[in-house]
């Protein structure tokens, strides 16, 4: 039997490598979705994990850390925010 493949449609699913919950506590959108200020998810809207284990969109946590109120604390547990490398 001879098969001719006329066309194939490839699908891919991607996800950030995270261990904990799946939404950003600040915007409450999925990590795999983009933050509300972005149009496209992925490389342009990455996520970041703190030493405390909490994960946010980079844009969300940066906006918080740049505000006066934040005092550079994680919004979840009020421990000093330190980016996990």
């Amino acid at each position, binding site marked *: 039997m001879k098969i001719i493949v006329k066309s194939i449609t490839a699908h891919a699913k991607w996800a950030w490598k995270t261990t904990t919950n799946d939404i950003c506590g600040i915007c409450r959108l999925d990590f795999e979705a983009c933050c509300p200020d972005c*149009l496209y998810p992925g490389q342009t809207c990455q996520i970041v994990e703190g030493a405390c284990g909490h994960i946010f969109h980079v844009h969300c946590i940066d906006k918080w850390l740049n505000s006066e109120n934040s005092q550079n604390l994680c919004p979840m547990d009020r421990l000093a925010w330190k980016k996990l490398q």
Partner: protein
Amino acid sequence: MLKVWKMKKQQASDEKTKPRNSAAKIRIQKDISELDLPSSISITFPNEEDLLKFEVVIKPDEGYYKNGSFHFRFSISENYPHDPPKVQCTQTIYHPNIDLEGKVCLNILREDWKPVLNLNSVLIGLQFLFLEPNPDDPLNKEAASELRSNLQSFKRKVTRSMGGEYMDNVYYTKVTV
């Protein structure tokens, strides 16, 4: 390379045409859909198109302010959840943490606000003010010192003010139903 440029152009034009809900609107919509309130708290939208402005009524079922019906106006800024909701009491009430103009002193609405808090936590916190008024963080100093020094007199004043009458040249709104 040419294709990349084409895609970039397409992206840019998409950006212009795509109708965008603001971040604040997206977030408050989530907050509203996740509300889990006790029967003592109700929320209404005077304009259903505008989710950023709404009214809240708290009817404490215990404590000094039992049987009262307290009205608040909420306004969510475009910078929500990075800025806390703005809350104003629309009545003149006798309360250590709410002044006669309706300004509210609640830690999570000011210095302790964090963007991971949501509308539900604010409403529960606001209700808590009526169950446990806090004399150590006063906006109405007279009411706070009364609460601290003479509980019986404080209770009487709360009850009188809630009925709607003049007390020390201030007319308090009738809040009992």
